[in-house]
């Protein structure tokens, strides 16, 4: 188990211009497997991830890690729904997180080649990253997030707008990463993907954690009516 966990969230709330985006949230996450955050649009899934990652400001409440908060931020990475590509080559995109951590250039290049191979971008190392296809960009974003060997990876709908093949490739990478002990916390709208990848599920509604259970428990017997309705494909607000 990673020394970052448990991650404890107590009464956490984030607001923008007076409007509550998320919260109050009380949640404890242990450091194993993958946690999938689901819920209807506007439920606060992305905001929760950003809050946990430290990319959104905490208005009230507390988020505590088992280790020092700076160390926790150092050991995690984030994959965005719409991949952000640096205006550089694929190779330079992969080397970037290493170079800012002062990893020597030769070592960074070797790792970049290794990860490009792993995600199937070996032949595209010299290509300009912003001109890659959506699936290739997402694979590159994933490899770039994993290249520093984080203990925790946040993924905000990593397969949104990708076709079945690209989704399967991303899921294979995520499964391989999970098998190495890296903790995954991701959001998705794809219930099939949630069932395939989740070890535990956080169901959110109206900015709050409505239900938090193991995947088996949640999918077999959700405790709330809203979660049941959501799983049945009914419209939940």
């Amino acid at each position, binding site marked *: 188990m990673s020394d970052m966990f448990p991650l404890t969230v107590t009464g956490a709330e984030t607001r923008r211009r007076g409007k509550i985006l998320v919260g109050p949230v009380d949640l404890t996450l242990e450091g194993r497997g993958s946690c999938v955050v689901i819920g209807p649009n506007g439920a606060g899934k992305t905001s929760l991830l950003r809050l946990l990652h430290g990319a959104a400001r905490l208005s009230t409440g507390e988020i505590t890690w088992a280790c020092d908060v700076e160390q926790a931020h*150092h050991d995690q990475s984030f994959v965005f729904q719409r991949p952000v590509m640096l205006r550089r080559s694929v190779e330079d995109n992969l080397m970037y997180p290493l170079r*800012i951590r002062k990893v020597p250039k030769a070592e960074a290049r070797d790792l970049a080649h290794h990860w490009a191979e792993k995600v199937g971008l070996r032949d595209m190392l010299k290509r300009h990253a912003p001109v890659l296809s959506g699936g290739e960009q997402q694979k590159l974003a994933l490899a770039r997030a994993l290249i520093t060997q984080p203990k925790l990876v946040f993924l905000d709908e990593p397969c949104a707008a990708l076709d079945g093949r690209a989704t399967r490739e991303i899921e294979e990478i995520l499964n391989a990463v999970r098998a190495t002990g890296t903790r995954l916390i991701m959001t998705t709208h794809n219930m099939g993907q949630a069932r395939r990848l989740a070890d535990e599920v956080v169901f959110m509604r109206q900015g709050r954690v409505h239900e938090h259970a193991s995947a088996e428990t949640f999918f077999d017997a959700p405790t709330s009516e809203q979660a049941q309705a959501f799983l049945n494909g009914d419209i939940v607000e």
Partner: protein
Amino acid sequence: MTDLWDGISRAIWMVLSVDANLLEITLRSLQVTLTALIVASAIALPLAAFLSVRRFRLRRSVIALLNALMGLPPVVVGLVVYILLSRSGPLGVLGLLFTPTAMVIAQVIIIVPLIASIAHQSLRDLWAEYHDLLISMNVSQWQKITTLLWDARRALLTAALAGFGRAIGEVGAIMIVGGNIDNATRVLTTAIALETGKGDFALALGLGFVLIALAVLVNLAIHWLGRTEREGRW
């Protein structure tokens, strides 16, 4: 019309005969302007990047001031630099008045706001694109600035070229602080002003065509070196 043709033929003749005087003036123009461009870029580009990534109380005011200073009257800049560098001025002890260094100082003051403002537009857009990624990577302030400057380098060339265009064609300020001294501070623009004053329009026009050719050539060279038109990289 005759003056125009005379000017063109005079320009061609001066270039073909490698006129020593023209060569000296042209090289000095290039030396002063490129030095000013390098110094101004070294100030303006990091400043623009800093203004893009850092939020502070007077940020908007500083940006508005930079935009306003783009229209700074060169003659006024020349006058202020003249007062500062004149023997009785606070920097008179440096003895820089009527030297190419004084001309560089005046040009730097004129083009820093221009380069910084244009660069800021590009860097602000790039920062909006990169913000979440760089924040999530725990990138330091300095690393943010260097990343933006490197990744926007082709767009920043445009800002630098705008600065070059303004500086190479500048006459008011450098006339005041340089004094248009032959073999010392005379550059193409001040020579044109002098010849026009003397009524030698053909020579003035000839120098003018050389100035235009120089500006176009430098722009093309920087454009080519920056490879701004390479596929998918603009």
